[in-house]
């Protein structure tokens, strides 16, 4: 646990020292969501109808933005090789990096989403579902995204390729996240959808570190 905490602390310190990453993700999220009233018109009923979808899709894309750099900086300066030699298993290190990534990129999205939902006239009943869904969904996005980030290390056009690989795998999280919001908005139970989101998170937590670690080992050969 000591190594795990140390790795999380290291990544957090690096991210906070740079400062730019969390702010960029948050700024993209806000700007992209704000584009929609300009695009589809400011009519409240229309925005209310598509608000869960807009918020979730934009949260997905914002999470994608910072994924490319999850392993890239360490890969390029050689610290990934040093990390691979640590006693802490590579799978646990991947989990630690995902945790740090989520704290830096995922939490701002969860904090901003209710505020942006105000701008989109989201129904009051849907707010808890939105926040709970994002709380369960964004860690899963970080974990699944880590697989893509590890696979595209050193690839040409890595950033775009990462999106192409990871977006199909994000679709289940998106489906259930939006379903939870829409169910709550209509007065139906949001619990089944949130439970499925939790199941996806547990699945990602169990399997993604192994896939990402295998991909990292391939990259280091």
């Amino acid at each position: 646990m000591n190594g795990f905490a140390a790795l999380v602390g290291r990544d957090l310190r690096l991210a906070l020292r740079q400062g730019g990453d969390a702010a960029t993700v948050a700024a993209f999220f806000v700007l992209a969501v704000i584009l929609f009233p300009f695009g589809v018109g400011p009519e409240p009923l229309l925005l209310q109808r598509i608000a869960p979808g807009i918020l979730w899709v934009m949260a997905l894309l914002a999470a994608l933005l910072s994924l490319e750099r999850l392993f890239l900086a360490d890969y390029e300066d050689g610290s990934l090789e040093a990390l691979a030699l640590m006693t802490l298993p590579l799978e646990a290190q991947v989990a630690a990096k995902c945790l740090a990534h989520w704290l830096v990129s995922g939490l701002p999205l969860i904090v901003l989403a209710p505020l942006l939902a105000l701008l989109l006239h989201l129904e009051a009943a849907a707010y808890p579902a939105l926040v709970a869904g994002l709380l369960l969904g964004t860690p899963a996005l970080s974990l699944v995204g880590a697989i893509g980030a590890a696979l595209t290390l050193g690839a040409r056009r890595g950033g775009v390729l990462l999106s192409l690989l990871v977006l199909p795998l994000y679709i289940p999280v998106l489906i259930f996240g939006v379903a939870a919001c829409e169910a709550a908005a209509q007065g139906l139970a949001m619990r089944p959808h949130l439970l499925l989101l939790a199941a996806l998170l547990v699945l990602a937590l169990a399997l993604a570190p192994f896939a990402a670690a295998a991909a990292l080992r391939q990259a280091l050969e």
Partner: protein
Amino acid sequence: MFRFANPARFLRLSAALLPWLWLASALLLGAGLVLALFVAPPDYQQGEAVRIMYVHVPAAWMASFVYAVMALASAVGLVWRHALADVAARAAAPLGAGFTLICLVTGSLWGEPMWGTWWVWDARLTSVLVLFFLYLGYIALVNAFDEPTRGARAGGILAIVGVVNLPIIKFSVDWWNTLHQPASVFRLGGPTIAAAMLWPLLVMALGFMAFFAALLLLRMRSALVAARIRALRLMAADAEAPVHPGPALGAAR
């Protein structure tokens, strides 16, 4: 399995096998098309339009089957470092993408007269579309690295991760309310489709399978030959302008 890992032996074996596979696919597809278009009965509800099924369903079966083959080959390549496993996975990917595209397009053409829509976002269609994008992602990933083995390994991991989509495709019609009909052939309790329609369907499926096998061997052969050509070119370039230090440097030591 490792008996066939020798590329030279594989080239000899596939050269012997390929004409028979072409013959088998021509016969099976020919017979299947005749059965499907002329012998099989029209549907009591859909009339003659049901005959798209004899292309759509085998293509759908092949789409999932080829992905499973690709994932299995990738696993063999990752675990045992089998020389030809990576070649096989790479060769199979565009074929699988092609079958998925045929499945989606013929399904769309069938849906327009039958369902009244070219597309619907139900679980079966959506998960097959995701399969198509997984194929495209795999192809993009293996071609994104300068070093071919790195691309093959990365693609292998992606192929294995994507296997989770196959049960979703199979059971999507059971787990969700879908416009797409439930399983009529591969189900507990046996097929519910009429025998007069089942046999042409199976003949077409075998024809698709033989065609895929022929194309796969062909693509693997071309990949091996292309690798040979690359190696020869490198050797020729090295002979013209050697990379290793010349005699002058050696004498200076």
